[in-house]
């Protein structure tokens, strides 16, 4: 047989893992048991499918196998009447084609993993491990901690869910909007972690951007009535479309302005724009849709020069209303500098600097340096580049700023 069993198992894992785990958690209430049984089922699939052939419906095979495994484990573990009742519930096969129930389970899982009673790092870890199905070692690499630290973090997070009685269900209608924002924030954090680490010494990290997009896609599909999950998905796709152009042959950062736009991935841009349009049809424009609109302005501009900077400045002003933050204000200043000239931008940047909200953020001196450079004030620009280099937190960014500094003509 020429079927590549490993590839089929891997594909099934990607599409079915969260579904199997989510359902098993609901029926057993035991997170560890659910993960172990799901893992066992995939291990069995690897062994059996290469001998018996790939079943007609691989997903259904996995669900049944994992479920049987859970029944076995529970039966062996205890004969208490409560456990026996639980076994009866687990053993009862659910209709695999019941999209509502299955969908609800995965949403329940995602909302529970992103519960605000958990620390942010616990939310990230649980989401990667339990929803995305990464191994503990992979999650550890993704979060830049040792495997032992990550294992402990996951145990503690599951303990908190159990002991603090974090419920395994969707939030109530009045809690849903803030909790949905919380889930979106975790997914965007995952994406940004991956985005900041696509090159250099961090190349060993797992593909967090890819995982974040996969999770956002899932969330967008499971919450069709909510436009913001699609706004986030669009935003990620549009940023991710530039992944091949963001670094040069030596791994150095390339600015948006200087990127080779033929290397942007067309398919991602097209999908991002289409997803964004369907979100905007709802008529309730939240912060992720606004950010995606900005990303779309960049992604669809033929050249850096022909970018609609005035439009981008307007979008940043709208974003500042729904998401007031000094970082948004800084980006607004950059857009104004591009549309009205560096002097107008610099005025806004100086106001921001005076507010003090961006102290310690390397992009404040870096932006100032860039605007001063454009104004021909090179000595002042050099001083700002030096402060930015001091504050930058990755080698990529430091290297980029050093190059800019050397390029300054005195």
């Amino acid at each position: 047989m020429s079927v590549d069993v490993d590839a089929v198992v891997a594909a099934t894992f990607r599409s079915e893992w969260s579904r199997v785990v989510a359902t098993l958690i609901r029926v057993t209430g035991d997170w560890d048991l659910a993960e172990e049984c799901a893992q066992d089922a995939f291990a069995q699939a690897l062994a059996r499918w290469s001998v018996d052939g790939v079943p007609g419906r691989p997903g259904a095979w996995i669900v049944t196998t994992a479920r049987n495994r859970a029944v076995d484990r529970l039966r062996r573990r205890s004969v208490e009447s409560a456990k026996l009742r639980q076994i009866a519930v687990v053993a009862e096969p659910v209709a695999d084609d019941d999209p509502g129930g299955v969908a609800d389970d995965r949403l329940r899982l995602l909302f529970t993993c992103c519960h605000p009673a958990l620390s942010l790092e616990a939310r990230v870890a649980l989401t990667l491990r339990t929803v995305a199905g990464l191994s503990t070692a992979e999650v550890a690499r993704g979060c830049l901690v040792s495997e032992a630290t990550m294992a402990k973090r996951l145990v503690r997070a599951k303990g908190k869910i159990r002991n603090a009685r974090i419920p395994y269900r969707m939030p109530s209608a009045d809690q849903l909007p803030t909790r949905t924002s919380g889930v979106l924030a975790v997914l965007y954090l995952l994406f940004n972690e991956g985005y900041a680490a696509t090159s250099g010494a961090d190349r060993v990290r797992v593909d967090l951007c890819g995982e974040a997009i996969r999770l956002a896609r899932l969330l967008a599909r499971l919450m069709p009535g909510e436009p913001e999950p699609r706004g986030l998905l669009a935003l990620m796709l549009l940023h991710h479309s530039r992944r091949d152009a963001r670094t040069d042959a030596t791994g150095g950062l390339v600015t948006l302005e200087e990127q080779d736009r033929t290397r942007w991935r067309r398919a991602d841009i097209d999908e991002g724009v289409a997803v964004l349009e369907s979100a905007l049809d709802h008529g309730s424009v939240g912060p992720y849709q606004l950010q995606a609109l900005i990303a779309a302005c960049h992604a669809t501009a033929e050249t850096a020069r022909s970018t609609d900077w005035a439009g981008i400045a307007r979008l940043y002003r709208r974003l500042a209303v729904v998401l007031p933050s000094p970082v948004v204000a800084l980006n607004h200043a950059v857009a104004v500098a591009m549309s009205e000239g560096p002097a107008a931008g610099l005025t806004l940047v100086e106001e921001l600097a005076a507010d003090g909200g961006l102290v310690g953020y390397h992009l404040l001196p870096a932006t100032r340096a860039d605007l001063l450079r454009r104004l021909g004030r090179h000595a002042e620009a050099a001083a700002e580049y030096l402060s930015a280099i001091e504050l930058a937190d990755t080698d990529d960014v430091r290297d980029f700023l050093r190059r800019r500094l050397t390029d300054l003509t005195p």
Partner: protein
Amino acid sequence: MKFMLFVCADAAVVDNDSDGPGADEPMPWADELDAAGIRLDGDQLRPPRDATTVRVRGGEVLLGDGPFAETKEVIVGYDVIDCADLDEAIAIAARHPVAQFGLLEIRPFYG
């Protein structure tokens, strides 16, 4: 499931009162939850200067005369509620009047 709500507020708000701040004021939050059988108990506490902490170290009973933690916010009261899970407890705590300016710490009971 039983939950303890520790009601915390800025020490300065409660320090000057002898009978407890707002002790006589009506408290619809408590009345509603009492009527629904959700709130099992609740009261206001004397300020931290009247607190005693008890610790046992190496078999020796150590008494302290302050609150359990040195922060600006102190526990001013508590409520014991019975509800299904943390999300329900959060919703109830968020409706407590002190949540507006202080904070409530939710702690599940054992068992």
